């Protein structure tokens, strides 16, 4: 089968799966899956940029996604003036001091020699740490004491939430720059562990620094880029148009908002896809693949491997950040407790590997397909378990056990799919050309 036909067929298959979901489980569920699938596809493109183009092994996707979510809160929520008065400037001063300490320590490392270097660096770091705590801590306590039940944080900038998507990308890019500067020189599996650790730290910060985005108290009711269902239902014009399509206002309004999100996400997806395709087929993209395939040879040809790695690491992470901001916008809330590496890092990796690493269309296909499967495995598993256990007595312990365990089928299935694809089709569904 020629590749173009095969690819069209694969994408058509995803379409059929979504339409099938729409017919069997309702269009609302199908659109929910589609929206998250589009976001997953963008995440997968980010990871594909790093792994497929450049061979960088980043398993800290979760951290960048969470930073994007943080951006959504910091951009869209209104500021809390009382909190800023109580200790906002203190917190900012503390953060600036902390950053200055790190910069000074790095500077000392570069400029000094021998034992003086070690001693000066240590003095700067330890002194800076206590200074930072002395300035920062009272501010943090004061801010978190301001009306903790509803705010207790500094709030955001009160700007349109759509603006948080590029801001999320920038935030993730900034974090990636810091991480890349320290960790990119390391071997691939060290880089993996380093990124895994960074992601955990980012989540820990978001959970515990209440002044930032309320920590585990969550931020709910974020602004939306699409109209609220209830407003639509109260709009006579909308109700009339819905009636002319034969829909009741409630269904029509939920579908309307979800389609609105889907259109927004598709626009972002297409822009990123266009850019990534341009990059892949440019001299820059060829250089990246040359570096990936043989670092030593590329370096001998005068390519700056570390700088290129840093560049693509930042770009890929920024895409994950954008996707993270989009996801938080879609959810309308930021819940740091729900970020789990299996769901936000390793699942994205399954998407990239299954879709086909090194191919942007593969990443999109993988993202949509694996997300559909991730959602549907549970009901499918439950159905399977019901059939398997139908011969058993209603109250048998085994039957209960089997039905309970359907909830855990997801991880098992994802692992099996990853292993099977790696074994029998290691280049993925849509291989790199």
């Amino acid at each position, binding site marked *: 089968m020629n590749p173009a036909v095969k690819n069209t067929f694969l994408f058509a298959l995803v379409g059929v799966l979504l339409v099938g979901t729409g017919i069997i489980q309702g269009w609302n569920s199908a659109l929910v899956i589609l929206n998250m699938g589009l976001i997953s596809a963008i995440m997968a493109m980010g990871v594909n940029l790093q792994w497929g183009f450049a061979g960088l092994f980043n398993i800290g996707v979760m951290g960048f996604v969470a930073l994007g979510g943080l951006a959504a809160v910091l951009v869209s929520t209104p500021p809390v003036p009382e909190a800023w008065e109580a200790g906002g400037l203190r917190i900012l001063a503390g953060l600036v001091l902390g950053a200055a300490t790190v910069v000074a320590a790095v500077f000392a490392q570069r400029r000094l020699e021998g034992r003086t270097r070690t001693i000066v660096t240590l003095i700067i770091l330890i002194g800076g740490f206590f200074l930072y705590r002395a300035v920062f801590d009272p501010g943090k306590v004061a801010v978190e004491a301001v009306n903790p039940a509803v705010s207790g944080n500094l709030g955001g900038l009160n700007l349109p939430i759509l603006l948080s998507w590029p801001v999320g990308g920038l935030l993730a890019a900034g974090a990636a720059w810091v991480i890349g500067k320290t960790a990119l020189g390391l071997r691939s599996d060290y880089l993996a562990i380093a990124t895994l650790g960074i992601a955990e730290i980012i989540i820990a910060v978001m959970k*515990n620094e209440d002044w930032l985005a309320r920590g585990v108290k969550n931020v709910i009711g974020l602004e939306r880029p699409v109209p609220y269902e209830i407003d639509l239902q109260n709009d006579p014009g909308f109700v009339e148009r819905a009636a002319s399509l034969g829909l009741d206002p409630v269904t029509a309004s939920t579908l309307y908002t979800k389609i609105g999100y889907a259109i927004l996400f598709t626009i972002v997806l297409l822009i990123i896809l266009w850019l990534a395709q341009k990059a892949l087929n440019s001299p820059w993209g060829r250089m990246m693949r040359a570096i990936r395939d043989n670092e030593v040879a590329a370096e001998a040809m005068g390519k700056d491997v570390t700088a290129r790695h840093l560049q693509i690491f930042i770009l890929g992470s920024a895409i994950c950040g954008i996707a993270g901001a989009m996801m938080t916008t879609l959810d309308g809330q930021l819940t740091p407790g729900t970020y789990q590496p299996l769901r936000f890092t390793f699942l994205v990796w399954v998407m990239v590997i299954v879709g086909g690493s090194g191919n942007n269309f593969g990443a999109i296909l993988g993202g949509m397909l694996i997300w559909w499967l991730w959602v549907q495995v549970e009901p499918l598993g439950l159905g399977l378990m019901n059939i398997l256990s139908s011969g058993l007595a209603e109250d048998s312990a085994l039957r209960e056990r089997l039905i309970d365990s359907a909830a855990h089928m997801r991880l*098992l299935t994802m692992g099996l799919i990853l292993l099977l694809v790696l074994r029998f089709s290691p280049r993925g569904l849509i291989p790199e050309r």
Partner: protein
Amino acid sequence: MDYLNALVAFANFVFVPGLAYGAQLAIGALGITLIYGILRFSNFAHGDTMAFGTAITIIVTTAFISMGISFGPLPTALLALPFGILGTMLLVLGTDWAVYKFYRQQKASPVILVIVSMGVMFVMNGIVRFIIGVREVNFADGERFIITAREFRTMTGLDEGLAIKTTQAITVVVAFIVMALLFWFLNKTRTGKSMRAFSDNEDLALLSGINPDWVVKVTWMIVAALATTAGVLYGLDKSFRAFTYFQLLLPIFAAAIVGGLGNPIGAIAGGFVIAFSEVTITYAWKKVLTYLLPEPLEPDGLVQLLSTDYKFAVSFAILIIVLLFKPTGLFKGQSV
């Protein structure tokens, strides 16, 4: 100033918990380091292997308790441990046969094996949830304390108490036995020597007639035993939850890398380095300092460098510092 009370407080809150945690990390890191040394990849499924072994042990423990078998003052789980190890051995040997063997024969690059181990991690995580669920399980029975804080206070007449949990003592004793056995095996037996030879130089080892399949099998069996032991000790000391075991991956990897990947002594040292730094940096030192410093200097705050929620950050920071300044680890590990 009261040095004795300060010392007891230090022992109670920092030294004893750090020692037990360090022993658990060290045994976990030994498994990572052995796989790295012999099979030459970073095994991301190790945390879930530990969870699997612990899950089997818990099931056998429950069965023992229901049959009325107990180990006196010691936790029944120690009796069940061999069964857990056996089950895990079967699992990892099966995994190796079904999954890893193919890539070994293909001579796949280490990073591919790491991705494969991610798949194995997913499957094992699923299996563990399948057999034991996601709830928290406490399976420590028998005596809870060797010495409680109150007993210690009445015995010594000090203000501070020193409590030693049975599980902490067991952890240290078992860890010592396990390490002694492992080093005896690696240094004195024929198979152990061939494993070390294989780790040092694969081609040379093959030339001298070492059977690679046997070496790989023995490695997996040892790793299964280490992982299960580490998992059970951690679970006895704290509690069992499938998810926490996955999160243990980070400090364990940090321990193995800090010590030098592929170097067993390094793994042990790394485990204690990571554990003690985590405990010291997240412990509130107010109590100890109050005893040590003259009254006007006594601290007002908790004197806690970082809140306990940031313990990941500690192991991670140590990892980064070691990697930047001594990339092969404290003890010379392999660098591929």
